[in-house]
């Protein structure tokens, strides 16, 4: 399964980047989301995956004894997911606003702030 996930992660990164390189703002956002998903999966996989053993302590037990999934990456991903949600919401609204103001989706037209003489 790891091999499949590795391919998946590579693909998520690749597609995220490909989308970020488009000129369309919406694609840019989608690219960022894909990239974020890729990073989350990467943390997940690199924390090493274990099937069907969530880090929950049995009601009768006091600690996890047998093999269990590493809870740390899970906590990290949770945090990362929530943070990306905040950032993505903001980014989506930013794009909406940009579209309203500039009336274009073409990022190539948003270059006045880089011009030397302004």
């Amino acid at each position, binding site marked *: *399964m790891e*091999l499949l996930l*590795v391919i*998946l*992660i*590579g*693909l*998520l*990164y*690749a*597609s995220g980047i*490909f989308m970020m*390189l*488009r*000129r*369309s*703002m*919406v694609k840019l956002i*989608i690219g960022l*989301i*894909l990239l974020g*998903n890729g990073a989350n999966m*990467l943390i*997940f996989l*690199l924390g090493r*995956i*274990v*099937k*069907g053993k*969530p*880090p*929950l*302590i*049995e*009601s009768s*037990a*006091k*600690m*996890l004894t047998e093999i269990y*999934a590493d*809870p*740390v990456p*899970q*906590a990290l991903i*949770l*945090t990362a*997911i*929530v*943070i990306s949600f*905040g*950032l993505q*919401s*903001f980014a989506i*609204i930013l794009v909406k*606003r940009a579209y309203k103001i500039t009336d274009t*989706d*073409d*990022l190539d037209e948003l270059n006045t702030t*880089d011009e*030397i003489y302004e």
Partner: protein
Amino acid sequence: MIIAILSGFIAAALIPLLSKIIKGKGSILLPFLPLSLFVYFASYLPKIGKGEKLNFVYEWVPSFGINLSFHLDGLSMLFALLITGIGTLVFFYTYSYLKGHVYLDRFYGYLSMFMASMLGLVLSDNIITLFIFWELTSISSFFLIGFNNDDPKSRKSALLALSITGMGGLFLLAGMLLLGTAGGSYSFQELLANGSLIQEHASYGWIILLVFLGAFTKSAQFPFHFWLPGAMKAPTPVSTYLHSATMVKAGIYILARFTPLLGGTTEWNTTLIIVGAVTMVYAAIHSIFRMDMKSILAYSTISALGILVFLIGLGTEESLLAAGVFILVHALYKATLFLITGIVDHETSTRDVTVLGGLRKVMMPVAIAAGLAALSNAGAPPFFGFIGKDLIYEATLHFGDWAYLLTGAAILTNICLLFAGLLAGYKPFVGNLPAEFSKVHLPHPTMWVPPLILAALGLIFGLFPVLIEKNLIQPVFSSLTNNDTVIHLKLWHGFNVVLGLSMLTLTLGVLLYWKLKPSEALFGKTLKFELFSPQTIALLFGRLFSGFAKFWTGFFQNGYLRNYVITILGFLTILLGYRLYQGVNFYVDTAKLTELTIYEVIVVLIMIVSIIFTVFSRSRLVAVASLGVIGYSICLIFLFYSAPDLAMTQFSIDTLTVILFVLVIYNLPKYKTFSKRRIRVRDGILSLFFGTLIAILTLEVLAEPLNRETSIFYAESAYILAKGKNVVNVILVDFRGLDTIVEITVLVIAAIGVFSLLKLRLKSIEKE
């Protein structure tokens, strides 16, 4: 001592506060600052004359060996007296010259600051401190040159001067640092103690190169000389003070100061001789075609500076003595001529020598001063200038194989300088007074007394060199050569070759004055040569540089986000790829992998297809929907691999994201394909390459053993110590609760951001 040096800065700081008083009558009090400093330094003359050297150390930045340590010996004494002495006169002169000027206070402020910097420069023993004061002179001169800042030319000149001297300053800084590092100390005295160490050091070449660059730019040596004529846009007192008597000599000072330490080598001497000789001849020839008094003086100053560099370069005891004397000679007559130019300009409103004439009839004392200065300049006996010129020829004649060539150059230079001196100091005052100048009258004594004093000194020192021989020139000589040979200054050496050369110079110079009349036409002809002048080349270089800047900036900061992204990612990819290729062995341990099941394969398959679908979909909504599928599939993977909390959260958040998209999708632009196919293919290749790198990296990491200390601790303590059974949640609210509080803060900020982005509409009055 420190008070003496800093007093100028203190005054400069106080002047803006006292501006009302200064703009009134108060400014007459200011010259007493340099005057008292002059007296203060002069009081040390006897001690210096006895060969004593005085040290004053004040701690400043001891941890880097930078202290306010001052060293008073002959050389610094000579400069200190010039700075304060001419300073006094210039301060007085300014009182009338800029009387009633709205920014008189500022002018005095800068002048005081400059004086203090200059004093600090010549008195510093610590070479870093020396550099600090060096830079301060550059910056105060920037303000002084740009004093008439309404005039674009004035601003341009200030900028040019600062650019050149500032650049030189940076080289000097590097040189000083190298020197200090190589010699193990920033104290000049300590460095001097291990002089040979430095001359043998591997960086010696770099050090002297950097010192030269600093000195040459400051002292307007060829090919860095061109800022100086422009700097004459400054008010005349500034030209007098900075650009003839003191600041430009800072470079000379440095060369002189470092001669005992760095000098004596072929590199040192040859460079200085060549640069000095070229400068003196080049500038001298340039000076004779000018018509503007200030321009004439500017070029003759450059030439004189060239002579000084040349003399230091010769490096013999004779030449160093000549240099020491010529510093004083030149300061006296050149300052005089500048002050006179100022008077002429001030009273007649022109400095064109072809127009001026007969002014002796209306301003006799000025004419006397001018005459004295011109004669000293000409090296006519019994003026101090004669002694100076004598010493120069003495030095060149005794310089081995190259004696004739060098002497010839010196003679040529001196002839031109003589001519220039006559043009500026003689021509305006003789002949008939043009009618338009008949109303011209003698200015306030504070203006004509200073040049007269200086000019008179040129005569007095010539007649009685003994006045300064022991207490001033002897110590200067000692500092320059680092030995105590006793010297004698004499006006009369008897009839010898040197005297003959002096006379030859005089004769030829006067002859030239007779024959060559400066005119617009002649000046115009010389301008043709400007095409090849260093200034033109420098400007060309500047233009090239600015073109390069435009290219570079336009290339990188091109305004296209995707180019930025591709640059960043390309950079990352190359580095990653290189590092992976270089140091990572590709290896997968299949035994460690978990088994594959059909449902997982299907989920992954769906994900892969969805990703491709998202990327290539032509509809925004479909892309969003398939993004949802990707998210939900991730959920399932989380679930299969024991992360129920993750699955829950991912699912809820994905749903919310979809809702968000759907809500705003109206206000989102339609999906369009902008880029060309070729670009898409290129991006695709880069993306896939990057993805592959990440994948390989992941595989490699998976093959490494993982330290499980942390996760074991959590598993064991979650319930016992933190009283929770869902370890992930315990981590979130307890073990790593700090992350969580930050992350909810992120959410809060994002919400506020969304709120303000959508709700805040500035009215036009509120925009800015």
